[in-house]
């Protein structure tokens, strides 16, 4: 289902395998879990700046930027936590293929559920400024209201009546009633590799693109947008 069209992508996958191998070799014992995020539109894996068809229409769409934070990664076995990573934030970006894969040194655990927070948790939001993935210079920050943007998607679509047919959804907010932080929980098979699909058509539909091409301020609309996050993620079962 997923299109691997270029040599570059294959080289990159080799690179990931090598990276994970080294991670494995360094761990004194136990296993490395590789979780790869796969952004999809209508069942097709997507890349930045490429034309795709908006599902159920004849209109086109390109994605210039898809960036989001995930934090508080957890593994569960029958509802009991077996692996917890608090206060670790990953900035996942479509344009940075390296960021799409997270390698976790999980040790000897059995699990059947993978969960994380989509966004930056509220205690981190109010604890000052950080570097690395959380450095405000990554552009995932609202200056006027001191909060990280949890999820950002920008691009163009022939459905948008806006200037240059642009759309931009910057979803942030961490204080009630306008929090956009969402908990994502996925049943998974106990394997050393997880493929996590992100079905963007659950988020962006023709109606939204034509009626509301820009959403960048706190309010009920932003909360509704964030409510669609959990349905977007699913575990891709291979074999």
């Amino acid at each position, binding site marked *: 289902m997923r299109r691997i069209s270029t040599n570059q992508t294959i080289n990159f996958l080799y690179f990931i395998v090598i990276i994970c191998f080294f991670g494995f070799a360094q761990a004194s014992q136990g296993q490395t879990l590789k979780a790869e995020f796969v952004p999809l539109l209508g069942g097709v894996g997507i890349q930045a700046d490429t034309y795709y068809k908006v599902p159920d229409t004849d209109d086109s769409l390109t994605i210039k930027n898809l960036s989001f934070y995930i934090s508080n990664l957890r593994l569960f076995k029958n509802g009991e936590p077996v692996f917890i990573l608090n206060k670790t934030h990953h900035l996942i970006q479509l344009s940075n293929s390296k960021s799409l894969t997270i390698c976790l040194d999980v040790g000897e655990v059995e699990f059947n559920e993978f969960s994380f927070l989509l966004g930056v948790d509220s205690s981190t939001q109010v*604890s000052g*400024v950080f*570097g690395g993935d959380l*450095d405000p*210079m990554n552009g995932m920050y*609202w*200056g*006027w209201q*001191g909060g990280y943007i949890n999820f950002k998607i920008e691009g163009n679509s022939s459905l948008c009546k806006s200037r240059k047919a642009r759309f931009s959804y910057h979803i942030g907010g961490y204080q009630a009633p306008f929090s956009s932080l969402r908990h994502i929980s996925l049943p998974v098979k106990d394997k050393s590799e997880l493929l996590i699909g992100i079905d963007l058509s659950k988020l962006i539909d023709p109606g939204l693109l034509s009626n509301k091409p820009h959403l960048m301020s706190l309010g009920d609309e932003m909360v509704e947008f964030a409510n669609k996050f959990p349905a977007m993620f699913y575990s891709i079962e291979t074999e």
Partner: protein
Amino acid sequence: MKWLMTVLLATTSLALAKNKSELFFKPAHFPEPQYDFNSNPLNKGKVMLGRVLFYDPILSADSSISCASCHSPYNAFAHTDHDLSHGINDQIGRRNAPGLFNLAWQENFMWDGAISHLDKQALAPISSTLEMGETVEHIVKKLRRIAAYKKLFFNAFNDSSITGEQVLKALSGFQLTLVSGTSKYDSVQMGMSGYNIMEAKGYEIFKKNCNSCHVEPLFTNNSFISNGLTLDPDLRDFGRGELTYTSKDSMAFRVPSLRNLSFTYPYMHDGRFLKLSEAIKHYENLDLNDGKGRAIRIRLSSSEKTELTAFLLSLNDKNFLFDPKHQFPRFFFQ
């Protein structure tokens, strides 16, 4: 008698200046600061870097506006005589630039409290299109091209990479050192001086009428209340209500500190009152709520107003205003 006064004055200034060799000093009568210094430990290099950045217009899109443009040291880091802040391309902002001092005791920032941490505060004016119109990403790019900054960042962080986090932590580092605790009021609190009759009477009036919101010794309770100001039809600024969308917060603004009030005029969030007397007059014939559901009624005779003013003037802190450690870092820009 005269020599006694001189000696007393000299010892007072000496005692007040004693602790000031430290980067950050907590006046004895102040509560513990809110700021977590462990998350951003101060050192000389960091405070120096923050000071240079504070005065450098490189932080704005066209290198015309620095933090100090609207926060001048000689105005207790406010913008005397300007009702609203100024930005790039001669733009006028929406709110009055407040004085900057005692920020280590403040939990959140801006007139509406929208910013939850001092380290993030600078991002607001930097990214505002009405103020500096810049991004921290681009500031970092610009700074990385300047050799002198490489050195300052190295001295501050023992790391020459120059990141957004470092820019912001240095800016807070400098601003944390802006402590105003050496006014006449403070020297009285420390038992090193005394009020004259007018000031003493004014202090009693203050305690009775103003102290529930402008709580000593910081002269604010860091809360947000509506103080009866009417909506400016042009600015249409609903204050904290724009943030929480609740009617309780509509037209609620931060209770500002009364320290250094001779230098921070015009007053209120939109600088609508040019004179202190206008601000005091505003509270007459007004029933206020102190935020805890208690009604406050301020009724003062004209002599009481004069006495209150005499006390309020004792909150001016000239030692803070003219502290050379806070001034324009000439050495860097020449």
